[in-house]
């Protein structure tokens, strides 16, 4: 059969010539590995987000939600001064928490990274992980014992003859709560960026007449900038959405957005309005995260 080998030849040639098909196959191959992540994103992020967006256009009549397409919730919420007050306050408190936590955490992570030996450093890292063993709620409750009017701190003050200080149900207490939430994580994130700094850079700075403290600002912080910014960003994200500290330590006053959400859902089944608040928060966090990452990598791109 002479036709057979000829046919075979052309078919081989055809196969080799079909580049698009090959490319398709390769992309399918890589897709196999990115598929789980893709599915995860769709199921747990895109789908709920889409639902939240849809929900924000629903209406509530006689304490019952019904699917709708009405901008009334957006108009109502954005028209209320309490919403914008609470928004500004939550933003400011989260920003303050990330600055304060970063500043307080830095000496700690700096000491662990540069002053401790390898053994002591391991122990310190372990100690920074321990707080995660206990529920955040439990840790916040224990702060109440310290901060309340008849708590440990005021008891101590009374013992030395000083007046009581009202600490519980203040912004100060909320900040303590944010610190409790973020401090160990911020230290760990800062630590890992500090540990990867090339030590010869520090020596070089010293050698070029840069004193010890100045080297921290001129070399250590710029070198670790990406890690430091990301640590602060995590603190902002966690504090911005936190409900536990503002309610159990701050006493719900002033009202943060997280408290506003619960209040809104409780008052007349206003889930659509709560969705508006939640979407505003997500939008804000996306914008802040984007800006922070841009700032962290500024001047690094090649």
């Amino acid at each position, binding site marked *: 059969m002479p036709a057979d080998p000829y046919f075979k030849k052309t078919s081989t040639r055809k196969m080799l010539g079909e580049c698009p098909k090959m490319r398709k196959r390769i992309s399918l191959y890589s897709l196999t590995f990115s598929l789980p992540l893709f599915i995860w994103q769709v199921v747990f992020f895109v789908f709920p987000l889409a639902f939240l967006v849809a929900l924000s256009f629903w209406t509530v009549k006689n304490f019952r939600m019904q699917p709708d397409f009405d901008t009334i919730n957006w108009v109502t919420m954005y028209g209320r001064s309490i919403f914008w007050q609470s928004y500004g306050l939550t933003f400011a408190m989260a920003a303050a928490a990330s600055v304060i936590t970063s500043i307080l955490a830095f000496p700690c992570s700096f000491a662990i990274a540069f002053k401790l030996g390898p053994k002591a450093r391991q122990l310190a890292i372990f100690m920074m992980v321990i707080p995660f063993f206990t529920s955040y709620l439990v840790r916040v409750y224990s702060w109440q014992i310290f901060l309340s009017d008849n708590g440990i701190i005021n008891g101590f003050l009374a013992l030395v003859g000083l007046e009581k200080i009202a600490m519980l149900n203040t912004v100060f207490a909320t900040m303590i709560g944010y610190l409790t939430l973020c401090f160990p994580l911020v230290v760990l994130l800062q630590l890992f960026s500090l540990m990867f700094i*090339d030590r*010869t*850079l520090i*020596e*070089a*700075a*010293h*050698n*070029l*007449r*840069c*004193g*010890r403290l*100045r080297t921290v600002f*001129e*070399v250590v912080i*710029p*070198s670790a*900038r990406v890690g430091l910014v990301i640590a602060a960003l995590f603190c902002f994200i966690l504090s911005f959405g936190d409900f536990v500290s503002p309610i159990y330590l701050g006493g719900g006053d002033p009202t943060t957005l997280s408290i506003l959400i619960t209040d809104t859902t409780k008052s007349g089944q206003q889930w659509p309005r709560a969705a508006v608040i939640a979407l505003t928060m997500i939008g804000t966090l996306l914008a802040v995260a984007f800006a922070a990452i841009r700032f962290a990598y500024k*001047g*690094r791109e*090649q």
Partner: protein
Amino acid sequence: MQSEPLVTFNGVIKKFGAFVAVQKLDLEIHKGEFLAIMGSSGCGKTTTLRMLAGLDAPTEGEIRLSGKPINDLPTWQRDTPMVWQSLALFPFLNVIENVEFALKMRGVGAKERRTRAENWLERMQISEFATRNIAQLSGGQRQRVALARSLVVEPEILLLDEPLSALDAHLKVRMQSVLQGLQRELGITFVYVTHSQSEAFSMADRVVIMSKGIVEQVGTAQEIYRAPKTRFVAEFLGSSNIFSGKSDGNGMLATPVGKFRLPQDGTSPQKGRSTTMVVLDTRSHLSVEEPGSEFDFVHAKIIGEEFTGATATIYLEAEDGSELRVQKDHDTLAALPIDVGQPLYVSWRPNETHLVSDA
């Protein structure tokens, strides 16, 4: 040479725990000289440099700079800029900011800083890269930035820790001439640490050879090459034939490969004393016939050959397995049967040998 040395190491010892990195170092570095400290890794050369820079503190002894003891002076109060092997350029600053760094630390005003940094960029021929990131530069360009960064403060002394080791061979030679030119023009002292013989010998006025924390020899390239003082130096340079044996007290050295005349320099070792004698490979000869009585010789077989430009080095093995080497020009070698396994006589004139210490 000069009356007052710029740097003096006075019995300097450096220990890291139980490990002694530098053992009782006495060394003087003169003003305006190009000094190379050479040795294999772990010999203490980098530690010596770091102690001078103030990055490591001596365990014992004293280091003086311009006559003043600097042991307790932190590195940021010394004017001893260093160029690192990794260059240690700041990746978060661009080229000109890197060069300006030391000036900024000294409180030089922004305008003057910029002018002085620009001058140095021009001098190093890297002006066009002033606003580039360090990551965007080639190895040679980074080298120039590192030099400019250290030299912009016009120091009296510059410390260099194997700065060329990361460059390819071609670039290395070019940077060598840049370094040498700079040192001549500026007239400042360079202390250059390297493991490379060719770098040390081609650039330095004086070379210090270290081994296991001890200075083996100090001298010009010529002095060290012609007359290595110790067995270590002779072996490290790898350009001599080394014979070890016992002196018979009558000016002869008994070795496993024969009895040779010792050099007549008035330092004839006592009878029975272990003695090591060396003769340069360029002063050794090859012949098929037994050489005349004016020569001492060893019978050996060729084991290999290496071309080094105008000359070639023939490697031979003596009867006891020790290796010998002879360097000759190609014309001389053409007249000889150079084949692996060929037996030949390796000979030398007794007055061209000299003794080295065994330490």
